[in-house]
C-alpha cells in the first residue's frame, strides 16, 4: 500500500513541473497555433542558466527562477518579433520546421558551450527529505511543486485580469476584431512567445534541481508537454495544471512496470516515449477535447 502512495506522491511532485513545462507550450499553441518544437530547448537553456549561476556565483536555484524567466522571455520575444512573425500565418509545416531548426541550433550551441557531459545543481539541502505516513518526500521536490502551483496561479490571474492578458485572449479569439480594437498583434504574439519561453526557462530551473542536465534533456519534456496539453485541454491554464498532475501520476505508475515474458524483460522506465504516445492516442480517441477543454479543431 505505501508503495502505491509513494508512486502517487512521486507522480504529483513530477506533475507540478510538467504543468509548468506544458503551460508555456499550451499558450503558444493555443494563441498562435504554433507547435513550438524549440520549447524543449528553452527548458534546457533555463536549466543550464541555473547551473551556470549556481556553479559560478553560488546563486540558489530558487533565486534564479526570476532570472531564467527574464532572460528567456527576452530571447523568446526577440525571436518571435524578428523571425517567427514572418511566417506565423503559414501552414503548420512551416512553423513546425522553423521551430525544429531553432531547437537544433540551441541544442548544438549548448553542446559547444557546455559539452555533452551530465551536469547537476546540487544544493546543500538537495538530499533533505521528510517522511509522512511511510511516504518519503524530498523537500526540494515539495518546494518545486509549490513554486509550480504559484506560477500557474499567477499566470491565470495575469491572463484574466491584466490589460495585456485580455489583449492576448482577445487575439486568440478573433485576430481581426482584436486588431480593430487597437491590439498590436505582432507585439502580442511576441509577448506570448516570450511568455512561453520564459515559462519553459522557469521549468528548466525547477527541473535542474532534481534531474540531470544535458543538451538533449529537453526532448522528452517537449513530447510530454504536448501530451499534457492534449490531456488537460488546449490553451487553458487549469488544463495544463490538471493535465500535468494526471500525466505525472500515470507516468509514475507506468514506469514501475517490470515484468518478464519468457526471457524478454519489459521495463516501463525504458519506455517513456512509448507511454506518452499511448496516453496521447487513448485521450485523442476517447476524449479529444481533454479533461478540462472546450471543443477545438
Amino acid at each position, binding site marked *: 500500500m505505501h508503495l502505491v502512495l509513494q508512486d502517487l506522491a512521486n507522480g504529483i511532485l513530477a506533475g507540478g513541473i510538467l504543468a509548468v513545462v506544458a503551460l508555456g507550450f499550451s499558450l503558444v*499553441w493555443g494563441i498562435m*497555433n504554433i*507547435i513550438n518544437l524549440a520549447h524543449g530547448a528553452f527548458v534546457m537553456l533555463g536549466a543550464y542558466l541555473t547551473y551556470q549561476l549556481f556553479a559560478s556565483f553560488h546563486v540558489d536555484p530558487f533565486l534564479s527562477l526570476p532570472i531564467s524567466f527574464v532572460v528567456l522571455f527576452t530571447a523568446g520575444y526577440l525571436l518571435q518579433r524578428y*523571425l517567427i*512573425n*514572418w*511566417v*506565423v*500565418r*503559414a501552414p*503548420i*509545416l*512551416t512553423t*513546425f*520546421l*522553423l521551430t*525544429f*531548426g*531553432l*531547437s*537544433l*541550433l540551441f*541544442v*548544438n*550551441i549548448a553542446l*559547444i558551450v557546455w559539452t555533452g557531459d551530465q551536469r547537476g545543481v546540487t544544493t546543500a539541502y538537495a538530499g533533505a527529505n521528510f517522511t509522512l505516513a511511510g511516504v518519503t518526500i524530498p523537500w526540494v521536490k515539495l518546494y518545486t511543486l509549490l513554486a509550480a502551483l504559484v506560477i500557474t496561479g499567477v499566470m491565470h490571474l495575469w491572463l484574466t485580469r491584466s490589460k495585456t492578458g485580455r489583449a492576448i485572449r482577445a487575439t486568440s479569439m478573433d485576430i481581426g476584431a482584436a486588431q480593430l480594437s487597437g491590439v498590436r*498583434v*505582432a507585439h502580442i*504574439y511576441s509577448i506570448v512567445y516570450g511568455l512561453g519561453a520564459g515559462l519553459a526557462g522557469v521549468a528548466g530551473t525547477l527541473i535542474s534541481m532534481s534531474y540531470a542536465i544535458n543538451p538533449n534533456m529537453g526532448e522528452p519534456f517537449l*513530447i510530454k508537454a*504536448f501530451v499534457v496539453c*492534449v490531456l488537460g485541454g488546449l490553451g487553458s491554464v487549469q488544463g495544463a495544471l490538471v493535465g500535468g498532475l494526471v500525466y505525472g501520476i500515470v507516468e509514475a505508475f507506468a514506469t514501475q512496470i517490470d515484468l518478464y515474458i519468457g*526471457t*524478454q*524483460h*519489459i*521495463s516501463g522506465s*525504458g*519506455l*517513456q*516515449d*512509448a507511454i*506518452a*504516445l*499511448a496516453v*496521447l*492516442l487513448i485521450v*485523442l*480517441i476517447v476524449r479529444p477535447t481533454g479533461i478540462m477543454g472546450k471543443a477545438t*479543431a
Partner: protein
Amino acid sequence: MALLLLVPLGHNGYIEIVFRNILMYAAMAYGWNLIGGYTGYVSFGQVAFFGIGAYCSAVLSAHNIDNLFADVALACVVTALFAVVVGLPVLRLKGHYFAIATLGIGLALSDIVANLDVLGASSGLAVHHVDEPHFYVYYYAMWLVALGSMLGTYFIARSKLGFAFVAIRENEEAAAVLGISATRYKVIAWAISGMMAGSAGAVFAPANGFLDPSIAFSADSNIFPIVMGILGGVGTVAGPFIGALILAGANELLQKYFIKIHTLFFGAMIVLVVLLLSRGLVWLFGLKGGARTWLKSLTAYKA
C-alpha cells in the same frame, strides 16, 4: 538520375557512399512527399518505416537469408501492414495532432526496439554484407529504390489515386462528398509512402553492416527527408530528388569540413529554407516576375 548510375565506376568508396546516401534520402523524401505533400498529412514519423525496413533486413540476415530482393519485399509487406494498423487510428487525427502523433510513433518504436532482446535491444545487431569490392550492389539497389519511388510518384500523381490524394489535401469533406473514401485513400497513401522509406531502410541495413535503435530511428533520417521535400517543392515529382541532392550533398560537405558544428549549420539551414524557400525550388524555377514576386512571397504569412 541516370547519370548517377555512373558513380560506382569511379571506384571511390567515399564518393559512392555519399551518393548512396543521397539516393536513400531521395527515396525517403519521395515517401514523405506522398503523404505530406500530395495528401496533406504532414507526417513526422517516416523514420519509423525506415527503421522497420532496416530491422526486416537485420532479422532476415540473422536467419542467414541475405538477399536484397527478399529484404525489400519483406520490408514492403511489413511497413504496409504497419501503416494500415497504425494508420487507422492515427490518420483520423489532423494537423498538429497528426504531426505530433507520428513524431511519437518514431520515438516510441525506438524505445520499444531498444527494449526487445530479439532485436539486439539497445546494443544492436550485426547485419551480414558482401565483401568490400562488391559494395556497388548496395549502390545500385539504392538507385533502384530511389528510381522506383520517383517513378511511383510520377505515375501516382497522374492517376486517379493521385487525384484522390490531392482532393483530400485540398478539402477532405468535399472529397468525401464526391465519393472518395478518405480513410481508405489516406491509409493507401501512408502505406505506399511507408514502403518507399522501408525499402530504403532495407537496403541501408546490410550496406551499413550494423543496426541499433539510434541508427535505425535517428532524428536525421526523420527530419532530413522533410526538409528535402520542402526545399525541392512540396507535392511535386522532381522536388524531393532535387532537395535530396542539394541538402544531402551540403550536409556531407559540412560533415567533412566542420565535423563538430555541422548540426548547428544544419539547424541554421532549416531556418533559412523555411524562411526564404518554403515553396521550394521547383516553384522558384517556374516563377514569373522574378525577384520581386519572390520578395513579395516572403511577407505573405507575416503577422
